[in-house]
């Protein structure tokens, strides 16, 4: 059990997270409004809007939004049969916990379809209410790991953590941690939804190797490829020529680079864009695209390079 959203909704900083994630919860708000008659104290917007933190901050739009969200989440809490907790458990969540969850997704059914599976997972389900974009990444049940892409803390200029009170909503970034890669990324900025792909079905061709090479050269600024990448491309060239059987690493690397290139293109950053992917400012884009490409094939960074060639 981690987070009680009804508590989070009481806090002004949570409201700052709304524009990117909770903005997509009109259904929740509608449900909350419809059910307010039976929710007892759930018609609490007026009460919550008078909470001192907001008054102190004078952020009227936050108060208004918070009230609506509060009602929705309070109703959701009631619907799911748990009481508001006295302390937001988000404060106790450690990165290690999240990493553990990513490594053992079967223990944490966080998808909306699973939100009532068990009492101790209600918090995750509720959390997903505020991060609806995440489960939309992969609706297929078959690709369960990706479907359970785990929402994580919002990120702001100070690093990981929940946004501070008074943080402008537009300054808040949110993301997710890929269950396969364990990496933090923003799936909404990764060039399309997470897919469920199988590298084992790929056939390594010389054309594909050329495309992968061209993609990787876009990171070099005209310089030489990194040694591990050059070595992997050499293996792929040999494989494409029929002189060697591919290993899982070869297939992973090959499909990953092609997938990554396609995701850049989806973002309008294909070769024709002329954008320098090796620019110092391009890390976040690369991280999002790279991680999404890992998630597409449900692999981690340790699965990309052949043993002995790993960076």
């Amino acid at each position, binding site marked *: 059990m981690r987070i009680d959203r009804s508590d989070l909704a009481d806090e002004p900083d949570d409201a700052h997270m709304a524009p990117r994630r909770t903005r997509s919860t009109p259904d929740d708000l509608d449900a909350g409004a419809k059910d307010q008659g039976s929710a007892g104290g759930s018609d609490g917007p007026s009460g919550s809007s008078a909470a001192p933190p907001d008054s102190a901050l004078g952020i009227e739009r936050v108060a208004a939004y918070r009230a609506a969200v509060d009602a929705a989440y309070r109703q959701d809490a009631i619907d799911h049969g748990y009481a508001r907790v006295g302390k937001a458990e988000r404060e106790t969540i450690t990165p290690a916990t999240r990493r553990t969850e990513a490594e053992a997704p079967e223990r944490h059914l966080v998808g909306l379809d699973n939100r009532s599976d068990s009492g101790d997972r209600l918090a995750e389900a509720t959390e997903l209410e505020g991060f609806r974009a995440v489960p939309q990444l992969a609706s297929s049940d078959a690709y369960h790991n990706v479907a359970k892409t785990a929402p994580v803390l919002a990120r702001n200029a100070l690093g990981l953590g929940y946004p501070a009170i008074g943080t402008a909503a537009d300054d808040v970034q949110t993301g997710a941690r890929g269950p396969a890669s*364990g990496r*933090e990324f923003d799936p909404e900025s990764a060039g399309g939804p997470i897919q469920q792909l199988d590298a084992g079905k790929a056939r390594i061709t010389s054309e594909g190797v050329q495309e992968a090479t061209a993609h990787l050269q876009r990171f070099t600024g005209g310089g030489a490829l990194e040694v591990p990448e050059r070595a992997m491309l050499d293996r792929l060239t040999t494989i494409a020529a029929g002189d060697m059987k591919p290993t899982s690493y070869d297939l992973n690397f090959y499909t990953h680079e092609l997938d990554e290139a396609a995701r850049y293109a989806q973002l309008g950053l294909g070769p024709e864009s002329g954008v320098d992917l090796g620019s110092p400012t391009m*890390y976040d884009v690369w991280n999002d695209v790279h991680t999404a490409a890992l998630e597409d094939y449900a692999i*981690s960074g*340790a699965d990309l390079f052949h043993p002995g060639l790993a960076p």
Partner: protein
Amino acid sequence: MSDAPLSGRQIRLLAVVAEGGGDWDARRIDLTADARYGPGDGTVLQELEALQGLGLVVRDDSRSGVGGRWKVTANARPYIQGTEG
């Protein structure tokens, strides 16, 4: 600043940066750290920036390189035990 307590993860990351000898960009450092040690709590760039705040690494944006190129400072030497490149 060099006596700041560092996590094991931070020390390993420092060693990776040192291995690059100032030539590796954040992407290469990320790929290396991820392959060897797995992901960190945030992105590698965030981790590097945290180390930068401790005066243990510096960023060089004068050359092309995803997320800038990074190298360790003299303050990092006590932590990397001769792995500095």
